[in-house]
């Protein structure tokens, strides 16, 4: 019981410290704290539309963060969700444009599958290289992000370009490839349902299945798994694929639910923020649900703060960075306390 209390206390301390940082920065800009805080909160809770926007933004974050967390479980430090997301987006666009006549009942599962496969394939590259040749996945995934982003840039100017407009973007996708709008006039779409289903799927995979057990064991002590006859490389590669696939679904969801066409910059760094979300959610599927909504709210709120109180939105990045650093300190203090307390 006592440990539970400590958990809450330390969480409060972390929250307090983070708020302090945020308030300090707001004061630095010379904005009125009360004005800034109220515009932040109104940006999130001010209307049902504002609240729905939080969920809209949480959707890709949740999917990508689930992907990142699966990688983290096996010790595959996947910093490439951004690129995998873009690959998913390319895949759905290309598929929907090549087969425009498919009925939704075929189209939707197809684009989901293709998007998953594209993201998974993109993550397979660093996954395979890590498993087979122990090449650092950290750098490889980041390099692949830049490649994927530039690839989108090329495609929307060449083979996927909408010939009707001079801008770098693809044509509007056939309607059969659109996710259902759940609660018009809000922009909440079926991607959110997909994300929540994936939460369950990931939970089952990680905590209930044999493969999930192997993944966790590999992440905690790969050497022991090797000695025990568990296929370490298989677990690593599969976790990379699954993780990349989920990030790819984030791309699918953004296109099918929101943009309906491929443009540059469909992701304002979702793939990177997803890493923060996964860490905040302690790599646990349920934790990730809350963390993704929380971070989405932070971003939406800070946008409102910029509009009305003149506080730059980059405060959100600062807060996220600081939050992770505080959590790192808390966790290490906690593990020391646990070891000494028993």
């Amino acid at each position, binding site marked *: 019981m006592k440990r539970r209390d400590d958990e809450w206390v330390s969480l409060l301390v972390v929250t307090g410290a983070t708020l302090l940082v945020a308030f300090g920065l707001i004061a630095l800009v010379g904005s009125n704290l009360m004005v800034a805080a109220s515009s932040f909160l109104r940006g999130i809770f001010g209307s049902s539309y504002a609240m729905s926007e939080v969920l809209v933004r949480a959707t890709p974050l949740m999917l990508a963060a689930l992907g990142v967390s699966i990688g983290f479980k096996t010790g595959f430090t996947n910093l490439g969700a951004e690129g995998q997301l873009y690959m998913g987006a390319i895949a759905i666009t290309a598929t929907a444009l090549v087969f425009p006549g498919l009925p939704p009942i075929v189209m939707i599962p197809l684009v989901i599958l293709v998007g998953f496969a594209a993201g998974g394939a993109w993550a397979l590259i660093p996954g395979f*290289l890590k498993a087979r040749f122990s090449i650092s996945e950290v750098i*490889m995934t980041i390099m692949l992000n830049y490649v994927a982003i530039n*690839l989108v840039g090329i495609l929307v*100017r060449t083979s996927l370009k909408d010939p009707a407009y001079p801008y770098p973007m693809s044509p509007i996708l056939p309607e059969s490839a659109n996710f259902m709008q759940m609660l018009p006039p809000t922009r909440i779409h079926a991607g959110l349902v997909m994300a929540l289903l994936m939460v369950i799927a990931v939970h089952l995979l990680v905590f209930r299945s044999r493969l999930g057990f192997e993944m966790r064991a590999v992440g905690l002590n790969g050497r022991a798994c090797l000695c025990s006859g568990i296929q370490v490389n298989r677990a690593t590669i599969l976790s990379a694929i699954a993780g990349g696939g989920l990030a790819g679904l984030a791309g699918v969801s953004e296109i099918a639910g929101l943009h309906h066409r491929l443009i540059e910059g469909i992701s304002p760094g979702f793939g*990177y923020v997803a890493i923060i979300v996964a860490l905040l959610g302690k790599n646990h599927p349920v934790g990730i649900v809350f963390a993704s909504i929380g971070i989405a709210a932070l971003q939406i709120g800070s946008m409102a703060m910029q509009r009305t109180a003149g506080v*730059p939105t980059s405060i959100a990045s600062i807060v996220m960075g600081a939050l992770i*650093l505080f959590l790192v300190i808390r966790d290490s203090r906690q593990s020391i306390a646990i070891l000494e307390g028993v």
Partner: protein
Amino acid sequence: MEPIVVVTTFFAASIRMAIPLALAGLGESISEKSGLLNIGVEAIMLCGAFFSFMVVFSTGSFFLGILAGMLGGLSMSMLHAFLSIRFKANQTIVGLAQNFLALGLTSFLFLMSFGQTTTLPSTRVLGDLPIPLLSSIPFIGQVLFSQNLFVYLTLGCMVLAHICFYKTDFGVALHAVGEHPIAADTAGLQVHTIRYIAALFNGILGGLGGAYLTIVKLGFFQENITAGKGYIALVAVILGKRTPFGILGAALVIGGAEALQIRLQTAGTGIPSQLFAMFPYLMTIAALLLTIGSANDPAALGIPYDRDKR
């Protein structure tokens, strides 16, 4: 243009592109040799770039600007070292969080100081400093000795680092701390102190690398000005196998790719510029593939040292 002029300017441009990578890479290699894996080079460079720009902008003094850049880099590398050593934190996560922090912080402070502007505030840049006599050697003089202060500084750092790594006791100590901290400790070395010193160098050199971008190359600052150069510096460290001249070589190769892509982009071929922009990244990937089977990471890289835990 005459072919020889093209070649000369290309090489000179490659060197200028390579400088920030080489400086930051050298710093990171010192850190990694001691066992501290800091993937927050991006954060170090960003802070270096931002603070040096701010100081040059407001005081006009390059000396103070360079100093500010070093301090900016230091703030990030020392924070990383402190969390890694004192709290035995996961070094990759700290580095990552710092990248967020620095990205947010620099653009926040920048917007705070200048507001949303249509024209970027800019300063004059550090000029070239041709070395008398040497600069008049054909080709080599143009490529090597008609450069700015940072180029000479980088070359000097490389030589110094080489001597330090392979000829001094500190180099041996650094190696020991990264390979086998327990052995280093029992031999009477202060493991944590040495790691802090390594982080110090990392901050200074990375900060200089960042400062180069703003006060030498561009003369202005904008959000995320490093655009992944910190990560590419990490690649240079791996390719160069943590040896000063190896890193310089790797930085030159990547810098060459960068110079080439800019040249091709501006050539106006009708091909989307993204294809060329992708080129340096594809090259680093290809180069990473070449390191297969020759990894030489320090044995204790990324692992916190704890006497009580053996």
